[in-house]
């Protein structure tokens, strides 16, 4: 009788053990696990995905992000969508951006970050809980990194650096400096924010994001005016219909 019960137990157990491997279409497309579709019926064909569970990325598994509560996700999605809807489908295609991944507490090597752009995989990972005060601006900042990565030849860092005063030097990387402040200077001296002074590409992204949120362009210093002109003219080279 005991052996008979063991046999039954074995049969039931085997039903659980020999389960199928599930296909993960999203992983196959953008190589990020644990994502689900949030919204793909968007006017500019951006596809919004969200973390169903935490995920880890990178060769050294140093990129981490976590799933959010639905309520927060719904709330932040409205803001993100409103901002990203400003980019046309044609423009997004040119810069190679198609997938927006929504998650929270995004970090690279334990350093928190607002977003991780990857124009090769056409993906932008956004931390939906990043600094509330600058959240909308940061969205555009990260989009600029996609633009920049897709059109490196247009946004030449050497040309850009020459806009600054001779004595100024950027840091070697955005995390190699303590210049991380995001608040907009009232009196600009070639830079919109402290973070602008970290690297040339972060400076460009800051100029672009300030333009996108409609910063007051009066009373800007001549250096910033030249930087703005540089960004605007190059954006028009990418897409003549781009409106800032």
């Amino acid at each position: 009788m005991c052996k008979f019960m063991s046999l039954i137990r074995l049969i039931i157990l085997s039903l659980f053990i020999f389960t199928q491997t599930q296909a993960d279409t999203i992983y196959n497309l953008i190589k990020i696990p644990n994502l689900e579709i949030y919204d793909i019926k968007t006017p500019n064909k951006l596809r919004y995905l969200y973390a169903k569970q935490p995920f880890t990325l990178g060769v050294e598994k140093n990129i981490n992000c976590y799933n959010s509560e639905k309520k927060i996700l719904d709330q932040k999605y409205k803001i993100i969508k409103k901002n990203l809807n400003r980019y046309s489908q044609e423009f997004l295609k040119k810069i190679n951006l198609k997938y927006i991944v929504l998650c929270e507490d995004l970090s690279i090597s334990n350093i928190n970050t607002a977003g991780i752009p990857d124009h090769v995989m056409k993906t932008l990972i956004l931390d939906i809980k990043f600094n509330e005060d600058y959240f909308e601006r940061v969205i555009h900042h990260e989009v600029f990194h996609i633009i920049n990565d897709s059109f490196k030849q247009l946004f030449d860092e050497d040309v850009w650096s020459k806009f600054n005063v001779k004595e100024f030097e950027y840091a070697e990387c955005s995390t190699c400096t303590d210049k991380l402040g995001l608040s907009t200077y009232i009196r600009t001296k070639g830079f919109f924010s402290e973070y602008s002074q970290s690297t040339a590409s972060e400076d460009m992204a800051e100029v672009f994001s300030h333009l996108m949120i409609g910063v007051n362009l009066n009373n800007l210093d001549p250096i910033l005016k030249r930087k703005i002109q540089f960004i605007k003219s190059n954006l028009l080279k990418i897409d003549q219909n781009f409106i800032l």
Partner: protein
Amino acid sequence: MIKKIRASNLEKIIFTFIVILAIFFFGSFFLIKDKCLFIKSYDPQKINFDNPKNIAILNVTCGNVIIELYPEISPEAVKRFKELVRSKAYDDIAFHRVIKDTLVQAGDLEFGKKGNIDYGKIGTGKSGLGTINSEVDSPFSFDKGSVGFARTQKYNTEDSQFFIILRDEPLYETEYTPIGKVIYGLETLGTIKYLDKSQYVLRPDFINSLRMLVN
């Protein structure tokens, strides 16, 4: 005098269970062996098509899969597909990548040929005709049964490999070049061999033939 021994209730239950188990075992053995048992076979000659020039017949072990091609959506891809079909290039080519209830993929002409499969390289083979540009701009709904050209991670690398999806895949729109849709016999593709633990199939099933209805 021989005493008649009556079976206890427990013994009767065990006996009944063993008999039922035996029936299921032998029954399923014969049913599973014939994987085509419940698959309907379609004869394209008995079906009227609106545009017979764009009908391709994929023949596999369990019958025909009838595909309608869409040259108006992807002219270059359909042209390439027809060219390969007409040269019988797809005959005896493996379904090397199969995900249960999700997709079947075939068309590696270099490393997927029956009798000459290279498991180390399958999925990377070329047709020798060169790659073609992706045609992903036209709206196309990748519903169950859609047929598309496979590519590498980069666009414009389509060659000869194609896939057929067994479930709706809305994210495939603008990612993959559509070439058509299965209009009859999709269930036949559910019988193509797959593995539980891997998308790539060891000792895979093969395409018997792939022909255009009208040459």
